């Protein structure tokens, strides 16, 4: 029972980090219709900067620097690259991000190699005991901080003028422009947010009990996708729910690998995708995603 609870809390924490990764991806996609294939590189670059700067600046300043760099990278991507492509040509933009990803990955691979860089977060190495539960402090922080972060973001999107501007330009760019909304500013904000959220998630992922920043974090970012889809792309609550489901499923499958041997070895990730496909068959826009409607 205790063990199950431990598994669950760990799963939830992982899922929330997934949700955060996905959220950055989704915000960019929603606001600009661009599939950001470089999202994982954004994440890695952000935490890489944190890890490199941390011995010099201390964790807090390094984290801010990492966030700033990833945010700026998002901004630069939008301003210097995407803004130069016809705004309807989302495919070209997506492929642009592939090119960008190749360059970023090459550079990060060159710098990181097989190293693991410690993140030096103050919560690293700490464990808390809640009753008979033993949990890394990171997990506890994640479980508290991420929902707050996501809640804040949701409030921002639904309650503020900025959020309205964002949703309006997502719905109809020309209409938004004619309502006085600066489209470029909206998409730039989205890209900045994408970078920030990726880095925030990266800090969580690289924290104890993970050993630190390493190349394999890029593929972790990809594991976040089923979460996005299960929850429904355009719903923040959905992102959380999807992250939870995937995190929990992965943790549970890994925890019962022996009894699930018939699925083959290492079925954890695959099961997440299977869950995703089943959910999609049942609800094509995910659990909480809004149905695409079209009227004629």
């Amino acid at each position: 029972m205790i063990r199950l609870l431990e598994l669950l809390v760990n799963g939830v924490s992982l899922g929330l980090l997934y949700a955060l990764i996905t959220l950055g991806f989704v915000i960019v996609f929603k606001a600009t219709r661009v599939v950001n294939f470089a999202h994982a590189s954004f994440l890695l670059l952000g935490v890489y900067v944190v890890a490199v700067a941390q011995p010099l600046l201390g964790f807090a300043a390094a984290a801010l620097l990492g966030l700033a760099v990833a945010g700026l990278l998002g901004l630069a991507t939008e301003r210097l690259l995407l803004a130069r492509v016809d705004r309807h040509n989302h495919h070209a933009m997506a492929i642009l991000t592939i090119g960008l990803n190749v360059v970023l990955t090459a550079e990060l691979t060159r710098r990181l190699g097989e190293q693991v860089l410690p993140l030096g977060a103050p919560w690293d190495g700490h464990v808390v005991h809640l009753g008979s539960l033993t949990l890394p402090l990171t997990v506890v922080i994640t479980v508290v901080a991420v929902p707050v972060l996501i809640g804040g973001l949701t409030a921002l999107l639904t309650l503020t003028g900025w959020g309205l501007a964002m949703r309006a330009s997502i719905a109809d760019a020309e209409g938004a422009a004619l309502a006085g909304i600066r489209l470029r500013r909206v998409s730039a904000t989205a890209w900045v947010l994408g970078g920030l959220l990726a880095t925030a998630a990266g800090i969580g992922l690289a924290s104890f009990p993970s050993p630190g920043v390493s190349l394999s974090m890029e593929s972790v970012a990809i594991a976040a996708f089923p979460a996005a889809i299960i929850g429904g792309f355009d719903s923040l609550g959905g992102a959380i729910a999807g992250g939870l489901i995937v995190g929990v499923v992965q943790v549970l499958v890994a925890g019962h690998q022996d009894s699930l041997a018939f699925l083959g070895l290492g079925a954890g990730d695959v099961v997440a995708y299977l869950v995703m496909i089943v959910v999609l068959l049942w609800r094509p826009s995910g659990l909480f995603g809004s149905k695409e409607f079209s009227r004629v």
Partner: protein
Amino acid sequence: MSDDAIAPARLVPAEARARTLLPRRLPAVAAVVAAIVVALALPLYVDAFWLRIGLFAMASAVGALGLTILFGAAGQLSLGHAFFVAVGTYGYAFLSGGDGGDGGRLAGLGLPPLVAAVLATLLTGLCGLLFSPVASRLRGIYLGIASLGLVFLGHHLLLNLRPVTGGYDGRSVTPFALGGFVFSDAGGLVVLGVPFGAVENLWYLFLAVTVVAMLVARNVLRGRPGRAFRLMRDSEVGAAAMGVRVQRTKAAAFVLSSMYAGAAGVLTALAFQRAVPDYFDLHLSVDFLAMIVLGGLGSTSGAIIGATFVVALPIVLSRYADVLPLVVGPGQDGLEASTAAQFVYGALVVVVMLTQPGGLRALLHTLRDRRRPAAP
């Protein structure tokens, strides 16, 4: 979105146009003939390194054609293409492979290679059909990520279905053979003083398959199904009101594209001479996507140009990157040649998309139009 979409507006009456058709088309026809002659003569002049790249490019081009039908025309984003390519590869290896290969661990049906190749393609279509309930219900990015699941599922199966796949170690591939002629190094055929090994022989096989795949794709895209795909992409309701059976048509596009991927898989198997699971990962799927957009979305020639770009460029760049300034040879300290090659490749992708958002194909068209400013 046929290749003529960009042709200048024509206000000539139909009959008049028919008369002018031949002379206007003449340069194009000449170009095609020249390309075919060059392609046929190539194995006599260039070495295996380049031919091998050509094989990979052609295998990918066939897969890219499939994706261009699915994504370019029907608007259905698939990131699961690598999975279907894998099915083709392993399908061929299994169907043509002898039973008890690899120390009795592997099963195989030992079918004649041609039969195995065709069946593997059909098998991939079947897999596409199995996934089509999902494919026909989803759109856009949702389908993209759902199909991404196939890649992971596929990789899992490749590692676990040992008797068929050989696990992480993969399995070897029976060389292609046609009427007793084996496409391998052992053939001993010598043409004009050049020994024809597997690569040279396969070159012609691949060329034939690619040309057929391209013509078929072109017909489909220009014909009735292609038009239905495209209206469906732009408005499902609109398409339904024109009598298009939307779900079925989506499924059809998916199955067709899977079969292309399957054929590409067979070619991949033959080019590698071995099937290994790690090749069929997400990168491969993303590469396919890059191919069709870089080449020019929705057009067959674009798919081929894009495939060549994406496949050949990194290999060639990393082979010759040491001529770049600031780059060191393998094993020395400094900016590794292959890393530099990756930078250049990534940057080129960016540059192409910035300057030719319509794809490389559009670039060719611009060049052609510039050469021929006064088209009638």
